[in-house]
């Protein structure tokens, strides 16, 4: 039986069209996947259903649920419906909870606000719901505050809050995008369990085709405010009828052309020897010695010129600290780091050493000064080189190499898309002609199609310039596509190292096995039947 049916949903915000004639139906107790790239209107579709659109939004069409039209329902009745009949969770669990209220109060509030229980009853119900989402009373009493929990735990609290009144529909907007792969697997598992046990329907919004493939009964693909294809999951995955769907699949399975087989180079570009980084934690009492956290523990590896090395691990495993140490931004408590025959000693790394390594960060929006033009942004590392005579030519050259045009140097960063910004970040990294580029989650924030393009660009640039890449990511499929060797890091240590294909096909360490098992995958027989891809 149909639980919710949207029809002719059209939305504009301050006159800009966002959704065009969106229609879909969600059956009772099923998982409905809504897939698309950022900006395609997935979240706005969900917010339109919830009646939580931003100011300036005008919406037409119908969303029928239980004989009512949610679009025309008065705000009072929508308040009664939200959280009661339809619950919702969001992408960013770190900020989704009120930092000054206990988790117990926040879960109980769902019941209290709907008049379903007194405060005391609501708290005991909150306890039961938190138990159900895997936050047990011994470790997670109701008096815990959000800042005492990890991202995955906070997302569990959000789920407990959203399902506290056993709604008929739960809308999950990119619920695992901000989480590690193992945490993602646990959260998806939890959602699946809730759907099964409580007969709740789930509207799962994601950019990740693999995530929906394992969960959803029906899938709809969205592009620029329209649903371009919708079908039963397996049918859609096998047929890939629409050109855009095919492009999405191709991009997510994309394998950049890379020169196979790195010529053996005797001298490594980067050598990390038994590096140790300790952080001093706050003292527990005034006279006790301050406890230490070993973020990086005896890590050693070598990276040859022209080689791509992947570094994978969950958040908190120490990969960011190690990256910062390699860049000369963290003092070491042991071991040493050598770059092209010179030691990297934080905090005073000589310019001659620093110019040999550059970095590209994850966030294409936050890593540029918005008030500088591109020519200035790209030439930021020039201070490492001293006097650069052919400055203008090198700017043009760098921009052309990353697939932009010399005319782009006059523009400001807000005039570019996310993918273009990452190209500019690459241009900035290339301009000193470094021996090593550190790519710290450099493609993680990009949509699949853009990500495929950037991966191609990385492969081309490496073939041309022969620099080494240290590729840090939590996304195993990307690491598999772009690296020759891979290091697996857990709790500050490298637990496994080897040829990428070898490690992925036959992982030796238990942790590597867990990571690979937790990665959602599109069933191979579905891919095989596809017209394009594989």
């Amino acid at each position: 039986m149909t639980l919710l049916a949207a029809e002719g949903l059209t939305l504009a915000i301050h006159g800009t069209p966002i959704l065009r004639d969106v229609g879909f139906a969600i059956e009772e107790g099923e998982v409905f996947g809504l897939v698309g790239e950022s900006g395609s209107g997935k979240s706005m579709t969900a917010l339109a259903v919830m009646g939580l659109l931003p100011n300036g939004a005008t919406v037409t069409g119908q969303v029928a649920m239980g004989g009512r039209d949610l679009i025309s329902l008065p705000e009072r009745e929508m308040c009664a419906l939200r959280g009661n009949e339809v619950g919702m969770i969001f992408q960013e669990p770190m900020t989704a909870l009120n930092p000054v209220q206990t988790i117990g109060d926040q879960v109980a509030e769902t019941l209290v606000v709907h008049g379903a229980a007194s405060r005391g009853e609501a708290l005991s119900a909150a306890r039961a719901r938190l138990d159900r989402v895997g936050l047990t009373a011994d470790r997670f009493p109701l008096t815990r505050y959000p800042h005492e929990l990890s991202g995955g735990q906070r997302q569990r609290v959000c789920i407990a809050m959203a399902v506290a009144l056993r709604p008929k529909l739960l809308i999950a907007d990119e619920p695992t995008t901000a989480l590690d792969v193992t945490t993602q697997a646990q959260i998806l598992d939890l959602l699946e369990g809730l759907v099964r046990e409580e007969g709740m329907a789930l509207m799962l919004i994601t950019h990740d085709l693999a995530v929906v493939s394992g969960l959803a009964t029906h899938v709809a693909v969205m592009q620029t405010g329209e649903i371009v294809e919708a079908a039963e999951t397996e049918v859609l995955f096998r047929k890939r009828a629409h050109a855009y769907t095919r492009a999405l699949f191709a991009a997510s399975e994309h394998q950049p052309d890379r020169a196979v087989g790195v010529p053996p180079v005797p001298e490594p570009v980067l050598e990390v020897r038994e590096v140790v980084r300790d952080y001093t934690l706050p003292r527990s009492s005034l006279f006790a010695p301050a406890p230490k956290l070993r973020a990086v523990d005896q890590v050693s590896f070598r990276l040859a010129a022209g080689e791509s090395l992947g570094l994978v691990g969950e958040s908190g495993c120490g990969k960011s600290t190690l990256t910062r140490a390699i860049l000369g931004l963290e003092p070491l408590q042991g071991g040493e780091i050598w770059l092209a025959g010179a030691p990297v000693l934080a905090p005073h790394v000589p310019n001659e050493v620093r110019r040999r390594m550059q970095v590209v960060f994850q966030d294409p929006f936050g890593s540029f000064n918005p008030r500088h033009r591109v020519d200035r942004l790209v030439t930021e590392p020039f201070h490492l080189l001293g006097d650069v005579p052919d400055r203008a030519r090198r700017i043009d050259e760098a921009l052309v190499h990353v697939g932009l045009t010399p005319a782009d140097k006059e523009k400001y960063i807000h005039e570019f898309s996310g993918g273009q910004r990452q190209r500019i970040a690459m241009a900035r990294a290339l301009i000193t002609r470094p021996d090593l580029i550190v790519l710290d989650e450099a493609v993680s924030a990009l949509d699949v199609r853009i990500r495929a393009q950037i991966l191609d660009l990385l492969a081309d640039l490496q073939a041309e310039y022969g620099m080494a890449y240290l590729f840090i990511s939590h996304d195993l499929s990307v690491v598999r596509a772009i690296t020759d060797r891979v290091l697996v890091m857990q709790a500050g240590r490298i637990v496994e190292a080897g040829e990428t294909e070898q490690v992925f096909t036959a992982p030796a360490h238990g942790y590597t096995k867990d990571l690979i098992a937790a990665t959602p995958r599109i069933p191979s027989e579905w891919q095989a039947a596809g017209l394009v891809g594989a």
Partner: protein
Amino acid sequence: MARYVVTRLASLCLSLVVASLVIFAVIEVIPGDPAAFMLGLNAEPEAVAALREELGLTGSVAERYLSWVGGMLTGDFGTSYTYRVPVADLVAARLAVSLPLTLYALVLSTAIAIPVGMIAAAGRGRAADIAVMGTTQLGIAVPNFWFAMILVLIFAINLRIFSAGGFPGWEAGFWPAMKALTLPAIALALPQASILARVTRSSVLETLGQDYIRTARAKGLSRRQAVIRHALRNAMIPVMTIIGLQFSFLLAGAIIIENVFFLPGLGRLIFQGITQRDLVVVESVVMLLVFSVIVVTFLVDIAYAAIDPRLRRRG
């Protein structure tokens, strides 16, 4: 939480010591001998020396500093050169006016500003918001002595509800004293309330944009419930900082309003102390003000921790 309070207290004591050293040093380097000044140009050197002795201006710097601090700790703030009475009595009498006036103005300002700021934020860009922004702009721009004179003109001269100035003393009874402080408190509160309302508005607006407000709405809270239950407490953190600063400012910064209303407050005392080179008074009142600033800051810190659990663990 206990640890947090203890570290805050330690920092409070340290600040007081540093402040006392700075104040003492500044007073030391000011040119001019208070004793010579008080006795006039034709004074006998012996008489000046005797007065110096009496005022405690002899002895080494360290001795004088220690006796000054020691005196303050035991409630002895020295004797005023000009009034020839203990500074402690003088300050106590002035505080009996300034402290209630400050609190009165602060309560008025807070009671008006927070609801007004919230209403403006809730209806951002609408008529109420525009009215609030316009009025507060005016409230900040208008000099408060001018506003005070307008108040006198309307309520004292035309309507004859309040008196135009003076202070009957607390001996006259609570209500008459409060009545005498009402117009000055309103005059003081206007600019403070204007600033505070704007801070509240922007703080609430910022909080309303947070993800947890969206979460609260998704739970079924109405817009108003989300503001009251989730936005308000988070939005109060910057607001409290401003309230703390305003308290310290009002305590001694009311001098113009004190003059308009002929109130014997702390502001006038320190002003007279400076013009008459009554350094004992200046030193003590400044120290008292520093003390109040530090104590208020401490209280604001404790209030932060009470509001925000993330701060409680830090030392």
